[in-house]
């Protein structure tokens, strides 16, 4: 069986799996960005309780393995009466895990904004909320986007794990085809290629574009 015959027979299945992978990626990306923002800010709170909650959250999710968290959400939460669909469980686990890493990036970004900016906003009598929203947040994007881009590529790779809790994504389909046909090189090789194309030709250019956009917005890029 030539490779083209393989593609003709199983290409559609793999592409359908790819669509699921993209869905998982987009949903968990949105979730992790929101969580990173919230916990990154909480981490810098002067209130010790809020700061403590954020620290425990971040240390917990960075300290354990993503696969363990994923299985815990999918197989153990039902013991407590919370049954999540596989897709939701996957997105939640990915979002929580990467949110913890993202929160550290956000924290670093906020700390990297020059102190003068805070002081100037203070001097202009902006409210604390306005200070964060209008002055600090727009300035952190050029700082946090490069590390966040790396993290997002890691997220794309990590979406492969949701196949292990029965989400029918690209990895799941590749595994399935492998167990039927035993054409391991073709199906896993194709899956690897698709992940590579998604990362190099779609995700990375998109993130670079965001970086340029963010740099322009604060007047640092060459418009």
């Amino acid at each position: 069986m030539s490779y083209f015959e393989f593609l003709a027979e199983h290409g559609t299945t793999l592409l359908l799996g790819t669509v699921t992978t993209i869905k998982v990626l987009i949903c968990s990306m949105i979730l992790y960005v929101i969580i990173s923002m919230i916990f990154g800010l909480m981490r810098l709170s002067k209130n010790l309780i809020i700061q403590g909650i954020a620290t425990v959250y971040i240390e917990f999710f960075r300290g354990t393995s993503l696969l363990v968290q994923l299985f815990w959400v999918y197989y153990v939460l039902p013991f407590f009466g919370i049954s999540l669909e596989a897709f939701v469980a996957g997105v939640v686990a990915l979002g929580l895990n990467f949110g913890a890493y993202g929160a550290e990036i956000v924290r670093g970004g906020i700390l990297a904004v020059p102190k003068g900016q805070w002081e100037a906003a203070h001097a202009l009598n902006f409210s604390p909320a306005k200070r964060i929203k209008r002055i600090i947040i727009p300035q952190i994007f050029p700082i946090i986007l490069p590390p966040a881009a790396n993290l997002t590529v890691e997220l794309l790779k990590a979406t492969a794990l949701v196949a292990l809790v029965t989400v029918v994504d690209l990895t799941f389909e590749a595994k399935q085809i492998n167990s039927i046909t035993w054409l391991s090189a073709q199906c896993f090789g194709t899956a690897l290629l698709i992940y590579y194309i998604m990362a190099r030709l779609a995700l990375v250019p998109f993130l670079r574009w965001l970086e340029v956009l963010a740099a322009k917005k604060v007047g640092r890029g060459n418009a």
Partner: protein
Amino acid sequence: MEMGFRWDFAYEILPQMLWATFNTIIAAGVGYAIALVVGLFFLLGQRTPSKIINGINREIVEFIRSTPLLIQLFFVYFVLPQFGIKLSAWVCGMITIGLHFGTYLSEVYRGALEGVSKTQWEACRALNFSTAYTYRKIVLPQAFPIAIPGMGNYLVGIFKDTPLLSTIGVAELFHAATAVGGYNYRYLEPYTMVGIIFLILSVPAAMWVRKLERRVNIAQGKIKQ
């Protein structure tokens, strides 16, 4: 089925889990050792004068870095036997982890070498030291401390990725938890214990790495004490 955490069951499976933890630590250690060496080879590929080798090296590194470790594991585990190379799950796992994280470590090495000031090289050239001598006595001793935090981070990273080995049947901690859970139809205790064991081992390790990082930064004058 009984709800809530059953302490007696947790206690009963504890010896099994601890034994499997031992396997996990060995897997992480061996994988890391391979990754350290593989990283050196990728670094070498990057620094050879040949443009063609540079390019090939870069593409390989990019490819390995932007594809999931899980599928790489499957690939090595299922494809090699079709070419007549029969390796155990352990060996496949160690090779894959070594290759995957070797690409990351080569970046750490590169960053560390570039972290050594160029004037050091110029001074050595002026003193007529050979390249080998310059590396051995001047550059590497300065580059090594810069590389330590990154190297430590990936040790913790490898440790946290070892559960993936369970998918090809390596009997590490997560594999044991799944087996125990399946046997007793109770996943709450085994998976929770895996989480706790990971926390106990990796949080102190990560804190230690951060402390090292701080020390290196202070020594380099990047931050003040």
